[in-house]
């Protein structure tokens, strides 16, 4: 499969859209809400068979070698259909950082496993939930032979309940520099507790109590985890933006369809000027979200400087997706506030995803700093 041409990309995305539309009833946010895994393991098997987790991994480790943008296209479709999936956490936040920073041995061990359907997640516990590259509330205490004992609690670890391993950012003793560790699910002293959160992604509190981590599980160097965290944050942020672009497009489509068919005062509500103004604002928001996200994804794919692009995209997309949902609620009226409607799943997604990897204010602040203000 040659994934470099855009025709192939369109093909991938169209195929993804078709599959996800067909699986929405069984694997969508509503369907898996009460499931212990928080997603559909059956669908994950199908995705694996189709090569989704392998898509952007390096070919030498069983991947298909496609560019990061292609992963974003899949995330966009997941967002559009509101299908919770460990794909983003596994690939963008753990496997790709591992591929870039990890030892040959770790890559050999885990990247092929991911391509075959094992899942990973990312544990980033910084004070105040700040998505920076320094400081962690997790402490790794050296314990001989280069290994560590890990202690501390992290919140908001997605899919931790089913992940086979976790990329964990810890600080060694009092040093604020990060060290990245790959911690396997079976590690003693590891506790996972599902949180009740706003969004559709299953999030966990993960606690480590004197949990042993061998030296071979250090990703990169001791004290050099900041670079790993930066990679995970950049890729995770961009992929989250793509997921939100899909969600926002889904909300816009749903709202236009409703406004076209719902009648009040003897005509479709979409013919009222106030509804038209709302929908036009949504169109501005969605188009801007898409262009900024894909510019950022392209820069990351090409390994160009991307901080301004990524933060700019996350700031725009977070604010605008939330606005898109708010306007959609205005157009839908009371029906959109009910549990039986799909709009609330998008609203939940927008609310939670806007907070992931730093909210709009956080990223706007990063842009301000980058501008030297």
């Amino acid at each position, binding site marked *: 499969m040659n994934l470099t041409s855009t025709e192939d990309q369109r093909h991938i995305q169209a195929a993804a859209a078709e599959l996800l539309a067909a699986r929405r009833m069984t694997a969508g946010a509503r369907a898996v809400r009460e499931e212990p895994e928080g997603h559909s393991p059956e669908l994950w098997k199908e995705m694996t068979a189709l090569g989704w987790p392998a898509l952007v991994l390096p070919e030498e480790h069983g991947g298909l070698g496609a560019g990061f943008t292609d992963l974003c296209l899949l995330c966009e479709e997941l967002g559009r259909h509101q299908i919770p999936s460990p794909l983003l956490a596994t690939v963008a936040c753990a496997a790709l950082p591992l591929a870039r920073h990890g030892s040959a041995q770790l890559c050999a061990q885990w990247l092929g496993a991911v391509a075959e359907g094992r899942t990973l997640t990312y544990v980033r516990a910084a004070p105040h939930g700040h998505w920076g590259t320094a400081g962690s509330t997790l402490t790794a205490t050296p314990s001989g032979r280069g290994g560590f004992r890990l202690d501390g609690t992290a919140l908001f670890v997605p899919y931790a309940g089913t992940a086979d391993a976790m990329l964990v950012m810890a600080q060694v003793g009092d040093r604020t520099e990060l060290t990245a560790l790959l911690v396997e699910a079976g590690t003693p002293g590891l506790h996972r507790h599902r949180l009740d*959160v706003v969004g559709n992604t299953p999030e966990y509190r993960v606690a480590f109590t004197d949990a042993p981590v061998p030296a071979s599980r250090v990703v990169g160097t001791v004290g050099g985890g900041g670079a790993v965290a930066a990679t995970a944050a950049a890729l995770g942020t961009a992929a989250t933006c793509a997921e939100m672009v899909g969600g926002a497009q889904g909300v816009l489509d749903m709202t236009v369809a409703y406004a076209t068919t719902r009648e009040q005062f*003897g005509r479709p509500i979409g013919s009222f000027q106030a509804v038209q103004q709302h929908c036009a604002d949504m169109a501005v928001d969605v188009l801007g979200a898409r262009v900024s996200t894909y510019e950022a994804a392209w820069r990351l794919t090409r390994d160009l400087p991307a901080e301004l692009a990524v933060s700019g995209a996350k700031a725009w997309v977070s604010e605008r997706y939330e606005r898109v949902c708010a306007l959609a609620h205005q157009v839908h009226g009371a029906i959109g506030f*009910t549990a039986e*409607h799909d709009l609330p799943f998008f609203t939940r997604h927008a609310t939670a995803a806007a907070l992931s990897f730093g909210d709009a204010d956080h990223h706007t602040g990063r842009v301000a700093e980058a501008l030297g203000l």
Partner: protein
Amino acid sequence: MNREENVNREEAMDREEAMDWEETAQEREFRQEVRAFVRDRFPACYRPDPEAEHSLEPEDVWGYDWPADRRSADPERRAAARAWAAALAERGWIAPHLPVAYGGAGLSPMREFILREEMMRAEVPTVNGIGAMLLGPTLVEYGNDEQRAAHLPGIARGETVWAQGFSEPDAGSDLASLRTTAVREPAEASDAADAEVYRVNGQKVWTSSAQHADWLFVLVRTDPRAPKHKGISFLLIDATSPGITIRPLRDMRGADPFAEIHFDDVRVPVANRVGEENRGWYVAMAALGFERAGIGATIKFERVLERLITSLRSAQGQDFRRADTAVLRHEIAQRHIELRVQYAMARLTASRQTAGAVPGYEASVSQLLGAELHQRLARTGAKAFGPYAQLWQRDGAPMDAAFAHMRFDAVAATLLGGTTEIQRSVIATRGLGLPRS
């Protein structure tokens, strides 16, 4: 030009009220009286439900749903809710504006404002809000003596709970296109009694707390051939009548704040019609005009903003607080300023009503501002806690996840009781005199 004169007269009134914001000695004394009453009489065991979603009624405080509480499965809560209603009823403070003869307290709008403000500040539940605030004034103005005598005392004592059946699946913003029918049957055709009845068929939706109601006030179509506003009547219907099915509706938060009602050949005595036949639209519009949103929401918002500021200064709050607070503190100050404006508007409205002024558009403005402020406040509060704002669980969450929940409560604020788009059109046409579209 008539509109112009009207605006000028209204403005003159604004200015008069704007001149003195100080309470009179009597008003201060009344405020003390309310405080003492709440302190002495509110049942200590009537505590907020820590897991509750907020009621969507603007006059309700968090943690209570009085119409449900009075029928709670928990006997203690049930008793507490009833005891609180009984205590309020002693003073006539369930329906404080109603005449004393009907069980009210005959309070002026300014006194009622003070009463509600103090109850909100004390965070004790409003009793029988819909019956007392919407139906009560409607019956006083449009009901007949029999209807007033039959229904007002039950409302004022907190014994009869009412729900409002206006919206239908195909009649939301365009309320007047409602299709629930009421067909008059001659006395002899009715098998129930000797009185003439309407036979009601149709469906209502989004009826707040209908599942907890004893009685319903409902708009029905009595003349299908008339222009849509002119074939509607306003009926009082016993919720236990045969043929009524009430099904609670689950909302996006997982609560059941409203219900849909099916009417299947429900017989309603003609004597239960308020106002003339086919003139019910105008009765309903008057009912909706009785201001409810004013002070309750303002005080609630004020208190939650205070709690936010306190929390951000506390040790727990410091842990949860986002790292970059420059924009946050600016937003909190903006919310404070907006709340101050909203409070002043509510006082203006109350004091104008007390002075007997012709209602202007300030109540609508207040409601619109309040609805949008609710959403801004929820966003600001959630923003304070960065990623922790996604905790839906109360346990271990900053401020017991108050803002995470409020963000979803607030979605309804600009929809229920008329979308803000409709509210703006009402302000433009009825308030400013712009031509209808």
